[in-house]
């Protein structure tokens, strides 16, 4: 390994692992986690985990149980659908309002766009669970609570994506139309509508998948639907009934994902990694018809669920804020809480981002390995993290690592699916060439498939880490896991002053995290 005449550029190479290694590096976090894990095991619980695993094969087939699960599933699905439709409507309106191009064309100035965009960061930075719990307190247990809890943060997210897409489009066609004397709204619709629709619908489709997960999660925290049943059956150790619900949910989730994937392919829509790629998808008429079908669908589902928007008008203010104990709020161990949250986020993100390619590599390109992976990742997406956390508590002591495992497992499922999806985009040519030259299937995968995917995948991972920061609240019930645990504690103590302060800190932290992950993403994508 003599490098004498060539050594000049190489000392740097040591510090810069090549592309295929990059997505695997976060998995190094496994080493300290595995080293600490034995100390966290409290001894009991193995029989429970065994019973839980065994019950997967023998779910309860009692018609009463199945009927109850189906009813719960219908409510969850309805909440997801309604929240999603509302978020799309909200997102389109707010997205237009926060687009610089729109303001430029309609109002002649750009600054209101930036201001609205900044304001929208607040609803976006608060997790739907927090919205749900706050609204629950304000208006009581109503179906509308879950719907709104999904619609508010999702709407703000859709608005951001839409505004980014709008402002990123080529505006020359728009200028041409304007200078030809077309009125502003007509010019906007003609010039930006067609190229925008596929990207927006593709993103919207992914949001529907997310909405289903969120609705399940909200159920776990008592907002109704299948999630509530799942949590109750888990807590009463009725594992066979639990699995009845889980299998049904899995079937619905996979059907939804397959359906959306099929639509995406049919309409030639761009993938999640790059919404801007790809022009006007085909079959614009079908897309418009689908969009037009949404409002009546929303009305139908809303009536079936008994959603009553008027309930929002009869709210009650948060109790006890007039006698707030701000000194007590100040005395909370803030530094510890924030540090715990950040540690939890980093651990979970590293686990999820690093494990997905590592598992892909270990499973290899064979059909069996991939099948097992797909299935385990689907289970991860399906499982609401708080339920994983409860399950882990059978074995492990509460704490940051336990919470990180629960959060990481869920996001591993999401990242893994994305990894497989984008590896389909990469195409088999290079991997094939390596195999033909005699390298083993796993090495060919490492060199040929992970190389082109590395940077876009990590860029998505950076975005996902930001999402995980927001999500830390949902594993708060593990205890001793940062702001989320404190928040749930304060909520159950009805200490509204503390809750408000914690939500504010959460929002600040998420905004900072968003900024950071944005920068990381840009530098990853630019670093070719």
């Amino acid at each position: 390994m003599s490098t004498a005449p060539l050594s000049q550029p190489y000392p740097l190479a040591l510090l810069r692992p090549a592309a295929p290694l990059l997505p695997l590096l976060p998995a190094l976090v496994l080493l300290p986690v595995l080293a600490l894990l034995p100390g966290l095991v409290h001894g009991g619980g193995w029989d429970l985990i065994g019973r839980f695993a065994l019950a997967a094969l023998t779910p309860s087939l009692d018609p009463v149980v199945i009927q109850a699960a189906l009813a719960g599933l219908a409510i969850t699905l309805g909440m997801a659908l309604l929240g999603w439709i509302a978020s799309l409507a909200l997102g389109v309106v707010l997205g237009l309002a926060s687009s610089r191009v729109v303001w430029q064309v309609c109002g002649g100035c750009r600054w209101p766009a930036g201001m609205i965009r900044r304001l929208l960061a607040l609803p976006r930075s608060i997790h739907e669970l927090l919205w749900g719990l706050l609204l629950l307190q304000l208006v009581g247990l109503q179906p509308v609570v879950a719907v709104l809890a999904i619609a508010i943060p999702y709407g703000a997210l859709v608005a951001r994506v839409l505004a980014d897409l709008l402002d990123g489009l080529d505006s020359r066609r728009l200028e041409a139309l304007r200078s030809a004397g077309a009125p502003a709204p007509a010019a906007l619709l003609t010039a930006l509508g067609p190229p925008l629709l596929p990207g927006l619908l593709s993103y919207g489709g992914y949001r529907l998948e997310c909405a289903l997960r969120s609705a399940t999660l909200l159920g776990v925290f008592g907002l109704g639907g299948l999630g509530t049943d799942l949590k109750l059956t888990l807590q009463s150790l009725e594992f066979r009934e639990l699995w009845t619900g889980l299998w049904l949910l899995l079937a619905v989730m996979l059907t939804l994902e397959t359906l959306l994937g099929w639509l995406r392919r049919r309409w030639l829509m761009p993938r999640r990694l790059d919404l801007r790629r790809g022009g006007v998808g085909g079959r614009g008429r079908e897309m418009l018809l689908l969009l037009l079908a949404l409002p009546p669908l929303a009305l139908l589902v809303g009536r079936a669920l008994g959603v009553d928007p008027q309930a929002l008008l009869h709210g009650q203010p948060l109790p006890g804020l007039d006698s707030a104990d701000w000194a007590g709020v100040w005395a909370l161990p803030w530094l510890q809480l924030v540090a715990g949250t950040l540690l939890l986020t980093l651990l979970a993100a590293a686990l999820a981002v690093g494990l997905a390619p590592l598992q892909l590599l270990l499973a290899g390109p064979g059909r069996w390995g991939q099948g097992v992976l797909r299935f385990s990742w689907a289970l991860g997406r399906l499982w609401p993290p708080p339920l994983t956390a409860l399950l882990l508590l059978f074995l492990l002591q509460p704490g940051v690592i336990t919470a990180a495992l629960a959060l990481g497992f869920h996001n591993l499922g999401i990242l893994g699916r994305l990894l497989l999806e984008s590896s389909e985009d990469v195409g088999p040519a290079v991997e094939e060439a390596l195999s033909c030259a005699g390298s083993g299937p796993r090495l060919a995968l490492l060199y040929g498939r992970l190389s082109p995917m590395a940077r876009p995948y990590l860029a998505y991972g950076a975005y996902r880490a930001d999402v995980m920061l927001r999500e830390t609240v949902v594993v708060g019930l593990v205890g001793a896991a940062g702001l989320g645990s404190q928040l749930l504690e304060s909520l159950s103590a009805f200490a509204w002053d503390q809750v408000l302060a914690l939500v504010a800190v959460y929002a600040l932290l998420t905004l900072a995290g968003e900024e950071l992950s944005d920068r990381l993403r840009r530098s990853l994508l630019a670093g070719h």
Partner: protein
Amino acid sequence: MPPLLDLQHIHVAGRDQPRLHDVTLGITAGERVALLGPSGAGKSTLLAVANGLLTPEAGTVLWSGEPPARSPRLRRRQRARIGTLWQDLRLIEELTVQQNLNAARLARWGWPRALLNLLLPLESEANAAALEQVGLGAELLACSVAALSGGQRQRVAIARLLRQEPQLLLADEPLASLDPRLATELLELLLRQAEAPRALLLSLHRPDLLRGFDRVVGLRRGRLLFDRPMAFLATSELEALLAELYRGEAVGLMP
């Protein structure tokens, strides 16, 4: 000694007509064989069968007298002896030239070296020698492939082939879309590499580059039209064969 490549009665089904029909072709060490034919004749399919990417529906494939090995380990060793120069090169854009050249060694390396190659410069001397053979300087080793010019890429792909040290070299239209001077240069380079104990099978659709080959094989609509040694082929006879091969195709004949 058995031929390096021995294809017997190969049949590959296609949508309307077979992509290959009853093709028999043997190549022994030291032979340089040009595979001619209009586009769509089945040249790429034949090469895919020859390097084991495609398993034919019928017929026998033997490499040095052995059928495709069952055990993955033996199969890998078998494949390592066949080097392919792909039409689209199939270099790994995100890696350096050095790492790409070393990727040809993956068949012989275990995991530790394969991983180390992604961290450290390995076997720089052998790689520099391979680059020199294709007329490139060692200073390119540390470059990312994405930063290379088209001609440099072609050469790096050939250098990677050399690093694999295969016995049988297969090349799928390596000269298409190259300017004439570069095409002649690269062809000479490939022909030089293919001396015994090696052999070369190269597909072309430009019949003006046949000088230097030992044999010429014509493929049309999946069937072998002719297979003749160049040494005993008069120019007029070759022209007649080519006229038959390209009948009804818009391709220029001999210059």
